[in-house]
């Protein structure tokens, strides 16, 4: 498999995961409005018979992304040869190039966060609540127990800052990898990536901050 083809796979799966991040933020936003809306949304998701298929596809795409990103990273580390540079500076350093050079590390942090996230929420404490005669999981209660603990909220925020950097490079990089990028669009694409990353940051930081404040009240 050629190096360029590996890029296509990482970029395509990354694009899918970016859309997942976006969709997930929309679902999460319901927590800000009402606990019932949030719980009903969660209930609708997990009682849908297609959920297993969807979960499988998401996990498969995620693992594909991780696998190829790791493969590329290890190959790249060895491509430098046995002796590295004593000194190397970035001739062009900015936020996006910082994001680019830290991709494997931000990726690793996100991976760890995701494992914890799934353990803490999907397989976390199970409370029940009844709306109009239907018993469903009260995930909202778990949120209000989780975020008021400062360490949880801070950890979540740090993970989201890291995610922002990952998405920032990833999104611009997709335009390059799929050859959509042109000289005249390059700036535009970089600004779109920057705007999108900021959006991800703001929306995902809102959740822990909101949850923390709920606990303080």
């Amino acid at each position, binding site marked *: 498999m050629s190096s360029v083809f590996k*890029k296509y796979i990482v970029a395509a799966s990354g694009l899918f995961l970016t859309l997942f991040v976006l969709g997930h933020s929309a679902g999460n936003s319901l927590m800000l409005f009402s606990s019932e809306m949030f719980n009903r949304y969660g209930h609708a998701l997990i009682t849908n018979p297609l959920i297993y298929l969807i979960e499988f596809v998401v996990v498969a795409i995620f693992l594909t992304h991780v696998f190829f990103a790791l493969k590329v990273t290890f190959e790249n580390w060895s491509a430098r*040869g046995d002796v590295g*540079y004593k000194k190397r500076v970035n*001739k*062009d350093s900015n936020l996006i*190039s910082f994001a680019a050079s830290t991709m494997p590390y931000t990726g690793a942090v996100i991976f760890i966060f995701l494992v914890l996230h799934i353990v803490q929420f999907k397989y976390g404490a199970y409370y029940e609540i009844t709306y109009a005669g239907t018993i469903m999981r009260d995930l909202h209660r778990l949120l209000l127990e989780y975020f008021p603990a400062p360490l949880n909220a801070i950890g979540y925020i740090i993970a989201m800052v890291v995610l922002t950097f990952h998405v920032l*490079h990833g999104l611009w990089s997709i335009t*390059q990898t799929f050859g959509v990028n042109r000289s005249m669009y390059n700036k535009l694409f970089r600004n779109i990536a920057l705007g999108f990353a900021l959006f991800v940051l703001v929306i995902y930081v809102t959740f822990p901050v909101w949850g923390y404040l709920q606990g303080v009240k």
Partner: protein
Amino acid sequence: MSDEMTLYLQVWRQKDSKSKGGFQNYKVENVSGDMSFLEMLDMLNENLAREGKDPIQYDHDCREGICGACSCMINGEAHGPGKKTTTCEMHMRHFNDGDAIIIEPWRAKAFPVLKDLAVDRSAYDKIIMAGGFIEVKYGNAPEANSMMVGKEVADFAMDNAACIGCGACAAACPNASAMLFTAAKTTQLSLLPQGKVESKKRVQSMIKKMDELGFGNCTNERLCEAACPKGISIISIARMNREYMGTLLKSDY
């Protein structure tokens, strides 16, 4: 005020491709700001020769920025601190009296060190040999306007043809990837009518060769573009990515 400088160099010395190598410290005096970087090294080498020591081996040829022979990582930057300049074109006025300068060879698995600062860049030639040429005989230059090429296209092809194959892109790339070189060499041909014919075969075999030679995978870090003495843009890489995808989807007929 005299503009003579004293510089403290740390130069990578390596006897041959099999030896281990290490840094050596040298003090160079009376360096004028008008000297090129290579002239400064020449002066040091003359001193070394006079002392009966082995002069520092480095690559150079034209000394006017067109052959791509000179190289060197100078204080962590490919071809030194100048923008769009080769080592031979870079003047010592970029430095100040008393500066310490670290001079290293290109580092990439595909560019093994031969001696001191000279590396074996035949990997780039091998990429060219895999398809960076036109096999069809086109005869003499065609009648003007008999083959229409858009101005932007011709300009972009020319920008890519400016590549001198010095290796700075792979040297500066954190992944030691040769994508900018390969992109420039495919782009300059694929855009023009004479080169278009073989573009599918060319882009596939050149990328294949590039991977085989042990260059890294491009991760869009843009440091190649910043290091390129000819200012070739990563847009050429985007173009090659697009062309390569097209070749996977398109049939020959």
